């Protein structure tokens, strides 16, 4: 068997490519199994940003392959448009500063003065994706 045949890694790569915002976490947004995953999912939810979530717990290989792909050792991991944004700390920092909203293309929360009307009428979509 060739090492290059790695269906799980391909599936993870595809999930990252196909979902503009995807969070790999322990548990689910509704039932996070780790405080760091909970905080990260909560930040996305607070911004009303649609995101796909993958629970890495059902199979330890998911995490193994994910970290090999992303070169990032810990969970959670947030990807936006195919790029690793960061884990819990970076997402929290960017949420606080408003950068997360910018990256996600949503309105910053609690803006003192509403910015110019966003004429972007893209319908919100809610995807829940699970591997494994």
């Amino acid at each position, binding site marked *: 068997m060739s090492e290059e045949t790695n269906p799980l890694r391909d599936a993870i790569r595809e999930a990252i490519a196909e979902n503009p915002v995807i969070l790999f976490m322990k548990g689910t947004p509704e039932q996070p199994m780790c405080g*760091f995953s909970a905080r990260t999912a909560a930040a996305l939810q607070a911004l009303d940003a649609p995101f796909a979530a993958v629970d890495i717990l059902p199979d330890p290989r998911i995490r193994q392959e994910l*970290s090999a792909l992303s*070169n990032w*050792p*810990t*969970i959670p991991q947030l990807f936006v448009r195919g790029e690793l944004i*960061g884990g819990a700390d*970076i997402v929290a920092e*960017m949420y606080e500063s408003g950068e997360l909203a910018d990256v996600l293309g949503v309105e910053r929360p609690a803006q003192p003065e509403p910015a110019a009307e966003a004429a972007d009428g893209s319908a919100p979509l809610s995807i829940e994706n699970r591997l494994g």
Partner: protein
Amino acid sequence: MATSEELKQRIEAALPGASAEVSGDDGQHFQAVVVAPQFEGLSRIAQHRLVMDVFAGELGGSIHALSLQTKVASAAK
């Protein structure tokens, strides 16, 4: 078991000129604030990677979590 003092020393040894403040007493969960000149011009991801690389293989394992905040050391010093 790792101690916060040990983590501090390893970070500062790996990133010359850096200063790290590390807390955490349970041997598995740590919080660190790292100020380093090496962060200059790097994205947050890249800054965090520099620090996490110091503990490659241990993060998520024997070190369950390292909460990280990185700051660029001001050039004037």
